[in-house]
């Protein structure tokens, strides 16, 4: 959808700004809100760019930098921390080679630390995009990530080939 279509869908009043930003971010393949869409949105809704940025940057679900196709959000809050969130970060770091805030080279995964996701009954927990995963341990993490990497085999292969051509 174009920015105009998204704005029309939710309504151009200021109170719909968050919904519109969600809409813009969700349709971006890299899961972020880019500069161009902010300036287009600014014209469409008649809100200064600074205000849109100021508002969006307040909320942790919005990003201004490109992220992976799969955004991994691991809960860092005390209940998950007690039950071993630290080792979840380590396992992901080991498996994908990324730290908090980083994205894998193939553009598949971004790792983020987040506050409570509301699934503490199965702590330690994380979300990958909109899917929730609970009762995590290292083995389960590897399984989940393996599965996604299996699904994205072609993309990873393509990425490798592209990298090779550069040498």
């Amino acid at each position: 959808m174009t920015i105009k279509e998204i704005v029309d869908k939710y309504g151009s009043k200021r109170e719909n700004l968050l919904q519109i930003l969600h809409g813009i971010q969700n349709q971006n393949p890299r899961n972020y809100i880019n500069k161009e869409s902010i300036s287009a949105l600014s014209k469409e809704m008649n809100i200064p760019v600074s205000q849109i940025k100021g508002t969006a940057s307040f909320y942790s679900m919005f990003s201004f930098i490109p992220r992976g196709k799969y955004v991994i959000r691991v809960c860092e809050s005390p209940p998950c921390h007690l039950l071993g969130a630290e080792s979840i970060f380590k396992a992901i770091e080991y498996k994908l080679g990324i730290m908090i805030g980083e994205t894998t080279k193939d553009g598949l995964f971004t790792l983020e630390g987040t506050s409570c996701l509301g699934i503490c009954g199965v702590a330690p927990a994380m979300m990958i995009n909109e899917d929730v995963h609970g009762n995590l341990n290292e083995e389960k993490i590897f399984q989940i990530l393996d599965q996604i990497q299996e699904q994205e085999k072609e993309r990873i292969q393509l990425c490798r080939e592209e990298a090779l051509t550069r040498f």
Partner: protein
Amino acid sequence: MSRRSIDQILEGKPYKKLLSSEKLQQSEIDLVNTDPKKTQYYGRIVLDNCGRINPEEIEEYIGTGGYQALGMALKEKKPEDIIKIVKDSGLKGRGGAGFPTGLKWSFAAQEKESPKYVICNADEGEPGTFKDRLIMEGDPHKILEGMAICAYAIGANIGYIYIRGEYQLSIQRLEKAIKEAEKLGLLGKNIFDTDFDFEVKIKIGAGSYVCGEETALLNSMEGFRGEPRLKPPFPAKSGFLSKPTNLNNVETLANIPPIILNGAEWFRKFGTEDSPGTKVYSILGHINRPGLIEVPMGITLREIIYDYAGGMSSGEFKMAQIGGTAGGILPIELLDVPLDYLSLQIEGHNLGSGAILIMNETVPVVDFLECCMKFFVHESCGRCSICRIGTKQMYESFKYLREKEANYDELKKIEELAEALKLVAFCPLGQSVASPVLSALKYFRAELSKEIDSNEDYETITREMSDIVFDYS
């Protein structure tokens, strides 16, 4: 309604299929049904339907007496009567502050301006709390019915549910519930053939804990940064788009239909004199059965751990944090304090959101507090400097303590800062940083001092004012 689900209801079997993303939530729902002896004895108000009906079919809700309370309210009662019943029931807000719900409604009802709004606060961000999510997923119509009754009582025609963006399933369930209720004329125009109109819309948050604070929530709903507003004016006078607004928590609203249906007297049979009714707790930590329970007010922590949670999963009980990260820490001496608003207040604590985090002796107090402070650093909105910088300083102090690089000045600084936050922070988020810190200092000072003593040359440590990193992300 499908034959199968009717059979299941008749047999009293839990209807599990659609409860949630099954693989994940089984432990939670099972728990609700675990202790039949106990729950039968006490009865459930809020979670009564959760796990028993298919939340995606309005007929099942109606089949259990759903929307009767709304019909009764609209046809037989005046708005003043409703407010009186809610006042008499003694229901207090379940969102954290524990403000009497009937009184709050009466403020909004007094306002002459229109339109008025009813808002359901489903932003649930308090670490350790997931009760609102399971209520929305398990019984969405109860919330809609509660909102409609509230709207009738205060004279509003528009309602909003502000849900945090992570709760996708809740959003879907509620959207479906709204559509179905509209189709049957239970929401929309001329409900039950009266001249009462009420529509409900959903607003989605974007990941910010402070947006659960009522005025920050209003700013967020209007499309601004979710920073708290100065009170007064209270939302009842000037809320969403500066119009009279009544805000309630999900659990508070879910209590309304049963109260209207059965009366205030019935509700007062549950719980204590000062805090009638039940409370939904999310219990977690080092226990055998983490999950959700609904128990009467006034039950003790000991009962929760050993009767409902199946005892400690490992080790011995050391401490519990009540009410989420913004709540106080209770040591073993307070295991027998009744959990209700008044008794906890006497001990200087707060029931908060209903999260109960139980920890065994393996958890060092410093490490735990450091993690709590990390949460506050992340979630401080940055509007006032004491909270923006104070939380960071606090976090660093606990880090130094844990890394055994602190001297006694550090403890003093922590204490002073906590007292200062309590006094001058602009909103309850900053003020509540003090609750875990001061209660830990009260009950576990010896352990915290040991962190310093165990470092032999702590006296040689000098510290400059630490570098404060300004980070507005």
